[in-house]
């Protein structure tokens, strides 16, 4: 009965693509309590995309640029304040001097090392934060890295006490089972976890084959959205990576392997991310597919609250802008 306030057997909160945003991670950790969810799932792409150097000018004076706006700082307090604003947006601040900055501009290997260090340090800190904040709760927390996350992230999540790594496995959500992978089909950016559709299909089949629950008690958490679902509409790009027609032309860029898996398995729910512009929900057969989108740079945690009751299809859900 659609109008009854029937208690769900499981309420989940799903968010994705927070890309290093400190604000979004903190909101995610509080989301379970806020939405009275039993389980929280982060769908992938935790790590940020930009390093912001804060350059020493001597005498405790510093300068930096954020969003193409120059900042002059004096003293530790101002620098810390600026670093916080950088982290809130999902970028990694680091302190340096003019000589080192020039060296980094010249040396790609050093830049990569610095990037990796910043990303992994942040994920480590986030896991410690999760362990502290979720210690007193019974809310389950699953994280499945996405195509933009390097592989070392998995090891750090595995070591966390209150966060479970979901990549490439089936996890129990009470009476439900969830199969996950953060791998995607090929992108123009040559990211960490992407592969051709046949290989992606094999990967998905491997994890889906481990499911023992019936479809109405099954959840797929695949970072990449199904092809042609509307959840995968992204701006069409020119050969030099500019949005064609000022971004008005959109094209589907999801995975056919993901779509086939959903069509065959018909889970109650499939959760996706990857395409930040693809916010929405759709039905593929009996499956409710959701991509909550992402506004990580604005510090808004876009998500989905879904009540799973084991019925024929999931009817109670809402997309949120937290």
């Amino acid at each position: 009965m659609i109008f009854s306030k029937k208690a769900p057997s499981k309420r989940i909160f799903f968010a994705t693509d927070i890309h290093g945003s400190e604000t979004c991670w903190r909101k995610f950790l509080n989301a379970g309590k806020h939405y009275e969810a039993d389980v929280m799932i982060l769908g992938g792409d935790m790590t940020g995309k930009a390093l912001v150097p804060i350059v020493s000018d001597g005498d405790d004076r510093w300068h930096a640029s954020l969003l193409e706006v120059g900042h002059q700082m004096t003293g530790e307090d101002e620098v810390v304040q600026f670093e916080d604003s950088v982290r809130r947006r999902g970028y990694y601040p680091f302190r340096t001097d003019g000589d080192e900055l020039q060296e980094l501009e010249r040396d790609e290997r050093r830049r990569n090392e610095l990037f990796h260090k910043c990303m992994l340090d942040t994920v480590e800190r986030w896991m410690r934060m999760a362990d502290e904040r979720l210690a007193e709760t019974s809310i389950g927390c699953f994280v499945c890295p996405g195509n933009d996350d390097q592989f070392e992230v998995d090891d750090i999540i595995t070591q966390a006490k209150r966060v479970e790594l979901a990549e490439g496995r089936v996890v129990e959500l009470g009476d439900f089972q969830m199969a996950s992978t953060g791998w995607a089909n090929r992108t123009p950016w040559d990211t960490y976890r992407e592969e051709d559709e046949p290989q992606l299909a094999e990967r998905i089949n491997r994890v889906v084959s481990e499911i023992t629950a019936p479809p109405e008690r099954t959840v797929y958490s695949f970072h990449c959205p199904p092809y042609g679902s509307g959840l995968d509409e992204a701006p069409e790009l020119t050969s030099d990576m500019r949005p064609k027609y000022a971004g008005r032309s959109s094209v589907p860029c999801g995975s056919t392997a993901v779509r086939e898996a959903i069509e065959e398995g018909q889970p109650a729910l499939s959760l996706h991310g990857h395409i930040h512009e693809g916010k929405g929900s759709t039905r593929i057969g009996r499956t409710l597919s959701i991509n909550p989108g992402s506004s990580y740079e604005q510090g808004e945690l876009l998500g989905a609250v879904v009540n799973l009751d084991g019925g024929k299809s999931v009817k109670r859900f809402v997309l949120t802008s937290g």
Partner: protein
Amino acid sequence: MAATAASNTPQENLFVRKATGLLRGWSVRDAFIYAAFSINLITLGLYIFSFAPFIPDGSLIWAIVLSGVYLVFQAITYASLIAAMPRAGGDYVWVSRVLGGGLGFVLACTGWWFILWHWVPIYANILNIEVVAPLAAILGLDSVVAFFSEPAGIFTASMIVAVLASILISLGMRTYARIQQICFYGGVVGLAVVFVLLLVNSNSDFISSFNAEAQEVLGAPGNAYQKTLEVGGLEAAGPTSLAIAPTLLLIPMIVFFNLWSNWGATLYGEVRGASDFRKNIYAMGGALIATTLVGAALLALISKTIGWDFYYAANNAYWSGLEGAPVSAWPYPGLLAAFFFDSPILQFILVAILSLWFFGWVGSVFLSSTRVVFATAFDRVLPEWAARTNKNGVPYAALALMLLPSIPISYLYAYTDDFVTYTLDATLVIAITFLGSAIAAAVLPWRRPEIYSASPIARYKILGIPLITASSVLFSVFLIFCLYKWATDDVYGVNNPQSALYMTILYVVAIVIYVVARLVRRAQGMDLKMVHGEIPAE
């Protein structure tokens, strides 16, 4: 594998790695095209300019220039909202996130959904007088001209508009974007030809051409130019008269044409900075100013070659339905310019090329509405089925929600006298929606400080006031002036009790939908408060 790059984005002094979604900047020229198409000098501009004789003492050119320059504040307001909340989805989401979900839904529902049903017959009217009637007249198809001037023809044209808009949207954004760009370039060529014709010919050339071709094409009696002046002539100020008060009175009329530069707004990609904010201002403000200047120049050429007194007299005769007018057709400047050609083929080609301004624009009557329907369905205010698409991505449910109500509304518009008055609220209702967004923009720095301070616009201030607040307050003043004049001045034809009642009903329906949705979702255990309620970060 995921290499890093130094400063390969507009932002200097940062390093980015190869990661999904990092794009180079979008083209200002492309965004300019879509903004210019939305303002649309040919369809909206020429149509509303023809009502200027109802305020004969005002200067049409100054009204266009003053309002065009002032509306740059609108461009800054919307560019700021986009920079602060990109990918948010327009007025609905901005108002919902800043002022509340209920207000956001009611304003978007009325301004981007319900009222656009009423724009269908307006588009149809423009189709009739700028495309069908002149082309049919040139071909000598008098019965076609007669049919499309009758109620059945207006209703038929409305259905053509509704179906065309549905087809364009069904083709998908990729195809529609290409069609729009082709239409823009073609339309610009047509407009350039009109400019050349008006520039190189004199008023006496026009009089002789008009007298000959009006007789040949429109079946007018001889010396139609002089007879038009005699029948429709009125004491009108010149195109650049400095009469301030009546010129200001023209502005609430002119906004039918130039209030839409925000439709060209865009922002894609991540790790973007203040340059994208400025690019949006250049695209929207540039299109607004460029269209304003081209419009003013076109009117100046009309004054020089066609004659201002004749232009006003012909429009006055048409809209007032004056008896004895030698020409019953709308004095479409495109057709008047085409009359410089003796050849019907060249006349046909010019009017047909100019009609690309209509065909590239017609999809806009449903496009934004379908997006609002999607956004509200994703927020679970509308039922889930409203956002359904078929296997080819056609948003059939949202299109049905636009198309089906537009049929009876077009019927009432075509076959009843009073209903036409209701459609005059078409601009007013959208202006109220824009006012909601302007208020949301004005208070954004205080209502959502975390979003504002994390955006590239946070550094822009005027005398210590956030630029977004200053620009949106000035834009609000403009909108309130227009709303006040629409409500109090008979000349705009929208301040009658029936119209007000009809508009109120639209708002009440939107409120009822929202309240019912809140109750139903609450009963389902999915309170809609969750949609926009902020999660504490600490």
